[in-house]
């Protein structure tokens, strides 16, 4: 179910998602760069916020604070103040491994582990999300859908405002 057309440059580096168990989602993607570079883009807030809220998905971050060290906190806020993602870094091992909690939804949030595995100058990135229970993962699915549609709704409003006041995107 890959939406890409043949011949697009990203075809070689496909993103795959697999629900590997009732509590786990595993996402994989290869990047054409050494691990330390990909790791840098995940650990510097000014870089992270450029890709984590993709414009193509109608997302935009208002603020992005990251204290990337064991026990350090992060907080990502969308345009709407009520939508924030926050948690704590549990492991920080440059340039190969990051682990953090997702605390915005209380007890039901997953623990996210990202590994960066360098292979001949390229990096295989594996994003692993482990939920406390099957129910929590199922609920996250429903929630994610809500958040996305909410975000799109806000984008519509924002575009109207921006279009009116700035005359550019």
């Amino acid at each position, binding site marked *: 179910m890959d939406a890409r057309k043949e011949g697009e440059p990203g075809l070689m580096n496909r993103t795959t*998602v697999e629900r*590997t168990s009732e509590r786990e989602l595993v*996402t994989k993607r290869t990047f054409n760069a050494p691990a330390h570079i990909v790791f840098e883009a995940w650990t510097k807030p000014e870089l992270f916020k450029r890709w984590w809220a*993709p414009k193509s998905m109608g997302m935009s971050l208002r603020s992005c604070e990251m204290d990337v060290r064991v026990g350090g906190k992060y907080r990502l806020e969308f345009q709407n103040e009520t939508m924030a993602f926050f948690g704590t870094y549990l492991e920080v091992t440059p340039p190969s491994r990051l682990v953090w909690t997702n605390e915005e939804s209380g007890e039901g949030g997953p623990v996210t582990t990202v590994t960066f595995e360098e292979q001949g100058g390229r990096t295989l990135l594996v994003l692993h999300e482990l939920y406390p229970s099957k129910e929590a993962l199922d609920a996250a*699915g429903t929630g994610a859908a809500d958040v996305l549609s909410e975000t799109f709704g806000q984008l519509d409003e924002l575009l109207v405002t921006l279009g009116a006041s700035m005359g550019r995107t």
Partner: protein
Amino acid sequence: MVQYTQTHFNASFAALSDVTRRGVLEQLARADASISVLANKFDMTLTGMKKHVGILEQAGLVTTEKVGRVRTCRLGLCRLEEEAAWIERYHQLWAARFDELDKVVEELKRKEKADGRKKRR
């Protein structure tokens, strides 16, 4: 996306391995039915039928709803589709993020090369 829900498929296959449960699904494909109607049709006790329906329910193949004293069963295939749909949205989100990340990474690579050249001078 073939891989997204292996465990669900396993549960579905287990649920479908029984001839009575396949019969119940066929029956529900024609019309919703209460547990007692199903028990009658398949010449079973209520408890026995509840067990079968429970297994189908766990696999997401059947949903039940209790109205008053009657528990109505209906085909629940949409739950599987629902899960597929949100995993697909999750997939789209991360694919979009990673396409943007590609741009950031390319920029960092170029910068590192340029810095490397500067240092050698």
